[in-house]
């Protein structure tokens, strides 16, 4: 009986801690993608400024309220604009950023292909 109780406690403890770890992972992932706006060049995760600390608390609160990762990003975007995200979405301001690498890759590929054909 004693053993049963002990094992039950152990199982409960581990399941709780793994639950906590999952939430922590999510929180870290989100705060790493948020820019600390007063200590630029650092993410909220890395920073220990007053602003970043408050932001971390707020991310925790929103996670507890049951908001998804994207909903949290959306929330901060309405408050501070797109700049707060390190991973910007595709829109009219960022399409060059997204399409330029593909364009360069295609043009480069075309040049290489062409030189092969010419050699043949």
């Amino acid at each position, binding site marked *: 009986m004693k053993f049963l109780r002990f094992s039950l406690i152990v199982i409960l403890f581990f399941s709780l801690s793994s639950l906590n770890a999952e939430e922590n992972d999510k929180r870290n992932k989100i705060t790493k993608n948020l820019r600390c*706006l*007063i200590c*630029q060049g650092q993410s909220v995760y890395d920073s220990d400024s*007053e*602003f970043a*600390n*408050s*932001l971390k*608390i*707020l991310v925790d*609160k929103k996670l507890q309220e049951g908001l998804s990762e994207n909903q949290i990003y959306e929330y901060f975007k309405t*408050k*501070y*604009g797109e*700049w707060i995200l390190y991973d910007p979405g595709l829109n009219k301001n960022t399409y060059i950023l997204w399409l330029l690498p593909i364009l360069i890759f295609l*043009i480069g590929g075309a*040049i290489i292909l*062409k030189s092969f054909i010419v050699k043949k």
Partner: protein
Amino acid sequence: MKNKILPFSVIIFFGIIFFIFYKGLEDSKIYTPDINTKKEIPVFNTKEFFSGENVKSSIIFEIDKIYLLNIWSSWCVPCRQEHPFLMNLNLDNKVNIIGMNYKDNFKNAENFLKELGNPYKEIFTDLDGTIAIEWGAYGVPESFLIYNNEIIKKYIGPLNQQLVDEINLFIK
């Protein structure tokens, strides 16, 4: 002729890329937030500074009145600099100055007001800094001009005579 077109177009292509990146180098990398857009003020629950009673934001901000929300703290040095300007603004009694005490210790904040005067019609507290984020604030000091539950203008950093004149123009 065909052989010449290819290297020529490659040079032009890289030339354009070089030009774009070179222009990008000259751009300022310091982010300047948008301060002129009108936004609805957030809805939040907080505590009154002196009594510690719970208050709702909808009670603090009424429609058809001009408010200046000032985020301040006793540990913030620029807040000391801007305090006389807030006292002057309060003399005219045309704008209701609301204080948001940011991450502060009650005793220190109380002493700050005793020493420099209290220009605020009402003060509420933001102990963990989350309400300031609801407002889209960056830190202390920061002020928001509010009319009809909308943020008309945002002032990041301490107020000075020039900004006070600007606020007076809005009030008129």
